């Protein structure tokens, strides 16, 4: 396979930490300011260049549908940004959930990067947000979610749209943790070739099928220069690509990240792991996300519906995948659970 043959030694990449944004999902958006400060300063000291801080569903995600956070996005951003010695802080914005009003707020707080996320076939809803991010001089990233649901040519078309609005970096985002290394390589390399060297390519993985590291390496082989990882693996589903493991693998392969392995390992062990409410790991439900191609942050909602309605979270997630739901459709989980309850009743009757 191409990626094993490729020699990646000497390649420089930027790792982007997700534990304080994607990691908000397993924490039900309740990470405290003190925990945010502790993890962020640890990452900064370890040399992680980019750290995302927002509600798990991005700016404006605070809601019944996705969960109310312990603090507002503004409070989190203002708590973390002034403490950073070298790291830049990013915010996520999903059009349809957040608006340019929140983008302006985050810019006023001092973010360096805005990441505008859409479903992988709907890039044109990001125009006004990417335009504004660029106009404000931010590092502006387009984030194509659930990228397993589109083939490479479609992703290329959508990535070009984001670049045309002004994105200087476009991500292939495996929100469901569904893709295998070949899938990642095919998509990332196609987008990289189509956009040329002027636009950076990124990859965001989830570890639901234990492919976080291999997929990220496949992405680097395909031309990606930004890789999302979560310190301690704290992210939705079975978590994101674990930062400390990825850094170790990069060192072995000679890929240059600028991150101190032992320091980041200590942040994972001493600051992230102790705050987890449950182990973020591959279990029957998180595995099902990757297997069925369902959005990773559906996990806790499915478990809650299981507890309330007595239908298995796994069945709910499989059905969510079958219905081709996309990111943000958390509201369908309770609806699907109620449908499954009704179907079971009528089967018994």
């Amino acid at each position, binding site marked *: 396979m191409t990626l094993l043959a490729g020699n990646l030694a000497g390649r420089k990449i930027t790792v982007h930490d997700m534990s304080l944004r994607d990691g908000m999902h397993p924490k039900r958006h309740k990470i405290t300011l003190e925990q945010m400060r502790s993890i962020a300063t640890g990452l900064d000291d370890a040399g992680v260049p980019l750290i995302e801080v927002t509600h798990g569903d991005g700016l404006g995600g605070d*809601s019944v549908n996705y969960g109310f956070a312990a603090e507002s996005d503004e409070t989190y951003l203002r708590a973390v940004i002034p403490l950073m010695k070298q790291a830049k802080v990013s915010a996520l914005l999903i059009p*349809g959930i957040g608006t340019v009003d929140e983008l302006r707020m985050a810019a006023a707080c001092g973010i360096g990067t805005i990441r505008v996320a859409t*479903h992988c076939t*709907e890039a044109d*809803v990001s125009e*006004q947000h990417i335009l504004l991010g660029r106009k404000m001089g931010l590092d502006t990233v387009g984030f194509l979610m659930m990228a397993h649901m589109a083939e490479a040519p479609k992703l290329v078309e959508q990535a070009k749209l984001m670049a045309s609005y002004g994105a200087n970096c476009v991500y292939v985002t495996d929100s469901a943790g569904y893709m295998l290394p070949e899938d990642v390589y095919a998509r990332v390399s196609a987008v990289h070739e189509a956009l040329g060297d002027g636009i950076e390519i990124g990859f965001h993985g989830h570890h639901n099928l234990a492919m976080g590291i291999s997929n990220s390496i496949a992405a680097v082989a395909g031309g990606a220069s930004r890789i999302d990882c979560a310190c301690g693996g704290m992210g939705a589903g079975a978590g994101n690509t674990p930062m400390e493991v990825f850094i170790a693998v990069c060192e072995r392969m000679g890929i240059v990240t600028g991150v101190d392995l032992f320091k980041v390992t200590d942040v994972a062990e001493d600051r992230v792991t102790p705050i987890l409410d449950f182990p973020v790991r591959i279990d029957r439900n998180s595995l099902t996300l990757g297997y069925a191609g369902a959005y990773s942050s559906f996990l806790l909602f499915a478990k809650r519906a299981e507890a309330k309605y007595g239908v298995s979270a796994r069945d709910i997630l499989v059905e969510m995948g079958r219905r081709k739901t*996309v990111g943000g*459709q958390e*509201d369908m989980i*309770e609806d699907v659970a109620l449908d499954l309850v009704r179907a079971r009743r009528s089967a018994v009757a």
Partner: protein
Amino acid sequence: MKKIRCALIGPGNIGTDLLYKLKRSEVLEPIWMVGIDPLSEGLERARQLGLKTSDQGVAGLLPHVDTDDIRIAFDSTSAYAHAANAKALEPLGVLMIDLTPAAIGPYCVPPVNLGEQIGLGVTNVNMVTCGGQATIPMVAAVSRVQAVEYGEIIATVSSKSIGPGTRKNIDEFTRTTAAAVKKIGGAARGKAIIIVNPAEPPLIMRDTVHCLTVEEPDQAAITESVHRMIAEVQKYVPGYRLKNGPVFDGRRVSIFLEVEGLGDYLPKYAGNLDIMTAAAARTAELFAQEMLAGRWSAPVLEAAEALP
């Protein structure tokens, strides 16, 4: 029977679907359809249906407002264009039914506040958004039973049913809908979320409404009120259905809806567009009935210089 004569501005999908609905009305008669693209399929279709058309936009309509006795104009262009269109037509005594997010006039969600519009002396009525039309009746169904501290709606629409205008300015949707969840739905605070789903075959519009009530929800009264409101909406959107709920969880009340369109011009899955055109037609019909009974007419303003 005499009918009130109307014009449609914007020959796109919404305008065309609306035209089909107006052709069936007992009190409205569509006379003009105007657009700005001479090659527009929508204008061609309108001509085939017997309408007068112009590719000069509202400028092409103005000389005929008086002679053709146009009393109501539907605008399905864009928020930006609507401001200019309204400025040109309102002084001539034409009532504007605004299907854009411009929201110059008061919001109208027919089963909630249509009756009130008549008394307001308005020249312009705004139809909020598709998500607003689908969900605000449910917020109101809860808030008329007891105080709602927070209303949140999630509209999921098929990718094929949302056009370039909405996509270019999706923030307009969330802002306008959230504002109307408060103002018309009766929630103290409002939030709106829109999700675009590209699944094939396209999914029928889905909407979820979450309300947080101030006190413990009166389950029986809310359930009854929700069912009564569903029946009201079904009078003009027969495919408006309660899919699941109301579900009660502490102070949370959640309602799961599906909106299937009539399939006049737009496909049935595009319930989001159908509910807009159906609400606009219903709103205009109420005004038309009042006009025909001689009880109401749009005030003709003094700005005669707007005449060509």
